[in-house]
């Protein structure tokens, strides 16, 4: 039984982690492609259209990977988490079905037109199809996070005698206080990923003195999008999302921050340290006094509950994992703002393209937004454990009752093999596209 739950959890974690590598780029990138296309319509400078076309190739490959790795996500609710689906399907099935009907149809219908229809449609309609693909992908994110928010902070439901959760207020799903901060935080983070990827490839072209006209355009666009989005990720959206955790999941907040004890004169913010759960303390801690209290309540001496004030049965299952996930996300987010600020200053002074060390930094930074996005999701998911539906339904009560651990391990190994292959092919092909670079087309 324990084994079974373990494999179910690992399989979902593995497949969803791999899946989300792709949508986080396509959501942000669709916005940037729409921007390039819009710039072209306004200025009629071919460079912008060629840039849009180049990124569409990368978009198409990422989108295809997102689709093929996304279908298993919907299936796994039923295959591996049957009890959870049976009990809450009347509610989370609602938002998931809406995702299929509202966003997948929109995206998939217009993606074909967007990728193959430029000649047939003309530039204005082609821009419109791009915009609709962008809209579809952001609607998809919205409905997934509406589902996620209900699991974090259930609203608009009642529980019947047979244990089933039924919806009694549809609009509550969308006015859920958890939803909007999380959604905007996630979308801004997705723009961060795409902006860093666009700037990294721009930096690569400028540094290697290849396609440098496009390189400069990518750098300029990437840095502006990157600065704005990395600030929005932290403030106001990250700040608001964290305040939701303080208010509705205080024990999770204490674990995220590594706060084993309540500090009567205000809480310090931990920068570095390793949680020692047995002795209930942080080893090798470096912390700044009172900052956490100020950030949370805007008062230097506000009290924040430490883990000591809660029943151990309510503790998040994996406190060190949660703590590291959160600190990696926040640490990287801070570095992103710093680097983009520096790059923006140089851009403003028209010195960016010659400031080699910043270009090198931008180029090597590309993988890190993926890490920050992933650890951000781990913070949310590990923070919710041991619950599937916070405070109501435990993860251990949600797995499929008849699927044996041998069968789950079999499919888990299959997914690992298949996704390794997919990942390898993806990298080869992306390398090929980047190496070939944008093509100048006379219009």
């Amino acid at each position, binding site marked *: 039984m324990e084994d079974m739950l373990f494999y179910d959890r690992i399989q979902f974690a593995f497949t969803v982690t791999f899946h989300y590598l792709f949508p986080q780029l396509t959501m942000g990138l669709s916005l940037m492609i729409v921007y390039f296309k819009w710039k072209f319509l306004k200025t009629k400078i071919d460079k912008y259209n060629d840039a849009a076309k180049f990124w569409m190739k990368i978009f198409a*490959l990422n989108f*295809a990977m997102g689709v093929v790795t996304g279908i298993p996500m919907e299936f796994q609710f039923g*295959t591996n988490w049957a009890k959870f689906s049976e009990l809450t399907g009347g509610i989370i099935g609602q938002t998931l079905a809406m995702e*299929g009907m509202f966003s*997948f149809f929109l995206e998939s219908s217009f993606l*074909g037109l967007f990728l193959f229809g430029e000649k047939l449609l003309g530039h204005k309609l082609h821009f419109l199809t791009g915009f609709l693909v962008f809209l579809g992908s952001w609607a998809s994110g919205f409905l997934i996070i509406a589902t996620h928010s209900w699991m974090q902070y259930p609203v608009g439901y009642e529980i019947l005698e047979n244990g*089933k959760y*039924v919806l009694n207020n549809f609009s509550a799903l969308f006015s859920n206080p958890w939803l909007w901060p999380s959604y905007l935080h996630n979308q801004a983070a997705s723009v961060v990923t795409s902006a860093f990827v666009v700037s990294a490839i721009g930096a690569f072209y400028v540094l290697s003195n290849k396609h440098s006209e496009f390189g400069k355009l990518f750098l300029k666009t990437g840095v502006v999008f990157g600065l704005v989005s990395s600030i929005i990720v932290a403030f106001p959206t990250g700040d608001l999302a964290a305040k939701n955790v303080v208010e509705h999941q205080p024990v999770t907040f204490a674990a995220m921050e590594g706060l084993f004890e309540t500090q009567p004169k205000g809480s310090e913010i931990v920068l570095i340290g390793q949680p020692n759960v047995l002795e209930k303390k942080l080893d090798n801690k470096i912390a700044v006094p009172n900052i956490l209290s100020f950030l949370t309540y805007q008062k230097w001496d506000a009290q924040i509950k430490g883990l000591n004030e809660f029943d151990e049965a309510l503790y998040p299952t994996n406190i060190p994992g949660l703590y590291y996930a959160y600190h990696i996300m926040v640490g990287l987010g801070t570095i992103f703002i710093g680097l983009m600020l520096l790059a923006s200053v140089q851009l403003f002074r028209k010195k960016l393209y010659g400031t080699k060390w910043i270009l090198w930094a931008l180029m090597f930074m590309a993988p890190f937004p993926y890490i920050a996005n992933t650890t951000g999701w781990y913070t949310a998911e590990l923070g919710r454990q041991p619950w599937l539906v916070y405070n109501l339904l435990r993860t251990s009560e949600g797995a499929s009752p008849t699927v044996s651990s041998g069968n789950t391990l079999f499919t888990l190994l299959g997914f690992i093999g298949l996704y390794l292959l997919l990942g390898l092919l993806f990298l080869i092909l992306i390398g090929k596209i980047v190496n070939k670079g944008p093509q100048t087309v006379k219009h």
Partner: protein
Amino acid sequence: MELFWYITLMIMLAVYLILDGYDFGAGIIHLFFAKTEKDKKAITNAIGPFWDANEVWLIAAGGVLFFAFPTLYASSFSGFYLPLIMILWLLIFRAIGLELRGQVNNHLWQAVWDKAFGIASLLLALFFGIALGNVVRGVNLGMVENGVSTHEAHYFFLPLWNPTFSPQAEHLGIIDWFTVLLGLVAVVALTIHGANWIIFKTNSELNTKLRKVVFVLNAVLLVLVVVSLLIWHIIEPNPFHNFLETPWLWIFPVITFTGIFGLFKVKSFTKDGLGFVFSSLFLFGGFASTAASIFPKLLPSTNNINPSLTIENVAAHEYGLSVGMNWFFIALLLVVVYLIVQYKVFKGKMDDVGYGEH
């Protein structure tokens, strides 16, 4: 209310069958009949801009199943665990076969992805037919052993096969001779359907040959369908009772056979789209007849202890189902608009779309 969602779900599945069905069929044609690079191009061009949107019908139908009939979703997805995950793997292979083929200009690379696309399409058609066979045959709900349920009344788990491959064995498997028979029906029917789509959407040199293929396979299909009908009563003692009680349901079998008999004239069709219409009629009629024959059951029980899953005992709560109708109608309207736009832009022959030439 349950009835509305039942009909909606069945229509969505039928649309999926007809739309993604031609993609699978095109894949099978690609595997067996496309010899030259030109043939292959014609086939991928014919489905290129559509297959992704077609696949969404599966996801959307899955979503509707999830929210309208959560108990059925939970029970069947966990019970058919292995074949469903394998269907996922095949869908992945098929999709990357299509998407990656054109990315590298090397004939070994392309040969690999051609085969991945073709074989995955073939196996998917077979698996979907087998899945239908499993639903018709029923499963051991509650996993009854010696007259006692070993699990909750609506849960079960099926291995891929049992050593006897018999649909009447005490321990059932996904694959037995009855479900494989329906799998073959699906493979043949979708091959015909895919061929009709290619004839409809391209001016390929392959088309004359494909008309002959359709004609021959159609005869095979007729034999397979008649055989399945004859042995159906082994699985279900009284397979036609719904039709006897509600005579208007006969319209579905009539549609099915209209499709088959219509296709025997395939060689003399003057309009290229006509064959596609007839194979769509067959698929729709066959699917609807099957659903009608087990109605109101959605998943029959093979034991006497636990009741079959029916539209009443697996549906979600009233409020959720009625509030769902509001957004569903809006969404459906939008979907119809998208379909019209999509098929208008890519109307007619598709030989010059240039799919895969990124």
